[in-house]
């Protein structure tokens, strides 16, 4: 149908009459497919291939080595260290952002004066480039002159400045806070659209039956919002799993590797030590973990939908 419409739009080319619609459709889709294949499929396949070789720019080696890289990866403490940090970052930031985002969405869903303005203002943190956010949080949590320490000190909550980025106990937490600040509005926006699809008549009917706000939320809004929540959570988890810029700007993976994530590790292995083979194995392991996360989310989503039916 699309093809037919497009053909007539082009201005009746003779060729168009000779070709059936399906072929036209394929022809028109080819550019999109080619560009997708070259920027998306090719790098994945090439990465998979490289991970099975000992390619290194420095040693100039480029031979097939089977699963040697993966065997090495399995015993690599640095990889597992980064893997756990990445999982922890993903879980913590996704859960916090979903909960806080849901709260924000519920507030924004209500009718109040200046709602348009609040909705627009809410998006500012999300629209900001991550590098800018990172620098900002670098200053906020600065150990010497940061305003966070100043506030905590004057509120009597701490008795000496905390060096947020210089201690393994606080560095990752601080990065998670920065990420929550930045990405919660995105979650709120996704959940807000979900909330708005819940028919008002259902909620009104519940209210007529005497249900209080909390009960309508728990028994009507939340179950109906569940698919949206899961999809938003999936989006967020996959994105959080790739965290790079926040870590790169704020700590570079330190101190003592306490904020190393899979992205920063693979960046270092690939582009600093130029071990393309081993680095590809790290990023392939990342790809596989992400795939598993996506499958878990999808299975849960399917179950939810079935139950709803």
């Amino acid at each position, binding site marked *: 149908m699309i093809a037919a419409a497009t053909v007539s739009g082009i201005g009746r080319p003779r060729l168009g009459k000779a070709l059936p619609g399906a072929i036209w459709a394929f022809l028109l889709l080819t550019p999109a497919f080619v560009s997708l294949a070259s920027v998306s499929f090719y790098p994945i396949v090439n990465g998979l291939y490289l991970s099975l070789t000992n390619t290194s*720019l*420095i*040693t100039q080696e480029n031979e097939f080595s089977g699963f040697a890289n993966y065997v090495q990866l399995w015993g690599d403490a*640095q990889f597992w260290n980064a893997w756990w940090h990445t999982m922890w970052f993903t879980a913590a930031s996704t859960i916090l952002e979903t909960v806080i985002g849901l709260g924000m969405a519920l507030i924004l869903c209500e009718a109040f004066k200046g709602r348009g303005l609040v909705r627009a203002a809410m998006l500012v943190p999300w629209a900001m480039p991550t590098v800018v956010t990172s620098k900002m949080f670098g200053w906020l949590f600065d150990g010497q002159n940061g305003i966070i320490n100043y506030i905590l000190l004057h509120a009597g909550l701490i008795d000496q400045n905390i060096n947020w980025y*210089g201690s393994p106990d606080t560095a990752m937490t601080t990065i998670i806070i920065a990420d929550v600040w930045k990405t919660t509005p995105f979650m709120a926006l996704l959940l807000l659209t979900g909330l708005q699809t819940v028919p008002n008549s259902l909620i009104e009917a519940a209210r007529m039956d005497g249900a209080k706000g909390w009960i309508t939320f728990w028994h009507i809004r939340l179950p109906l919002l569940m698919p949206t929540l899961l999809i938003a959570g999936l989006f967020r988890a996959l994105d959080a799993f790739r965290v790079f810029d926040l870590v790169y700007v704020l*700590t570079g993976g*330190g*101190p003592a590797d306490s904020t190393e994530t899979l992205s920063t590790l693979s960046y270092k292995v690939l582009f600093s030590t130029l071990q393309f083979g081993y680095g590809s194995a790290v990023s392939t392991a990342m790809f596989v973990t992400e795939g598993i996360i996506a499958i878990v989310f999808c299975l849960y989503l399917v179950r939810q939908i079935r139950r709803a039916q």
Partner: protein
Amino acid sequence: MTDIKKGPVSGSKPVAHVTIADRRQFLIGSAGLLGAATLGMGTGLGVRRARAQSRAEISFASAAFFGKETFGDLIKAFNESQDRVLVKNIELPPPSSSTEVYQGLVQQLARRTGTPDVFSQDVIWIAGFAAAGWALPLDEYFPADKRSAYFSGTLNACTYEGKLTALPWFMDSGMFYYRKDVLEKHGGKVPENWADMATVAAAAQKAGDADFGYLWQGKQAEVLVCDAVEIITSNNGAILAPDGKSSLINQKAAVDAIQFLHDTVNATKISPQDVLSWDEEPSRQPFTSGKAMFMRNWSYVYPIAQDAKASQVVDKVGVAPLPAFPGGKSSACLGGYQLGVNANSKQREAAIELLTWLSSTETQHRIALNFGLAPTRPALFQDEKIKTEQPFMASLETVFTGATARPITPEYAKVTLALQSGISKALVSGNVQAEMDTLAAQIDQIVG
């Protein structure tokens, strides 16, 4: 990934019209100098190109430094100074993005297309580039008598497996900054021993004359390796054995040195805990705002400290060699940039000509005055003009003379990542010996 800005710098436009006569003149004049490559251009298919531009075209890639002029201006001056070679300047990111500069360069060199013909490189890349066969050995062009004009430390760093694969350009090294006024009140003598330094710093801190006694750089980054090289070497220790095939970092000398750094934060408390997340600039700021007594940093700090717009301590800052341990010798980590020629360059003679010009006494003089980057030729430290305009350089000569290179190994990129992680762990946890044992095993595996 890395944006490499290609194209000539404004002003260095190629000569558009060259007459046949000019070309003939040029061919005669330059045949001896430029050799077969250029002659080939003047015959056969090359004729049209030669008519448009009768100069050997080469490219130069470097991290971007700024001062009263840029490296683009420098290349322009070279292009105007003669009529045989035409250089196109490829500007890489500034040296603060050293990793990006490295990646940009490697991606070009690995293609083996001959571009860039000449490049500048950090000392730690030299061995890797040489081992990969990307750097042209320069021994035949710069024999022993020409080399003697340079500092021996930088020459060592430019040598890989007995071959000179880079030419010293300008240098930098770690140095010891102190506050003259605060020191006056606390003994007046610049400490030459780490323990004395800690005592004086603690006393000044206790008396309220400085918020911080000693600032250094403990962030898990390249600079941490530099700080470590200095302190370990000043205790007669080393990171790698002389043959480069095994690690010495878990030996007593190195462990004691790292322990000293750990103690500055946790025992003597002359350094704030923040140094563990600070690289160069965050540690420089408290010093130039007058909060600290001593600091380890690079030479770029001196001009900033003397600039009334950026500094509260104008005329109060002194520079000295870093302290050492008893029985050890002060050690400064070698920094700075060196020049190299692409082994795949199709215009070797022209490349060597540019190299010679860039590293010449005249150009190094110009770089010292206009960029504030120290020469690699000791003779220039006696130059009157440099002494008046960049007075800090003269006081640094002793520091530069003994500068120590970071481990020279083609696997440096892997070694440095292991060092950054291992030393950071030791500084954070305080289990120095245990962390150094683990680190030594890792390094042995990388270089062995």
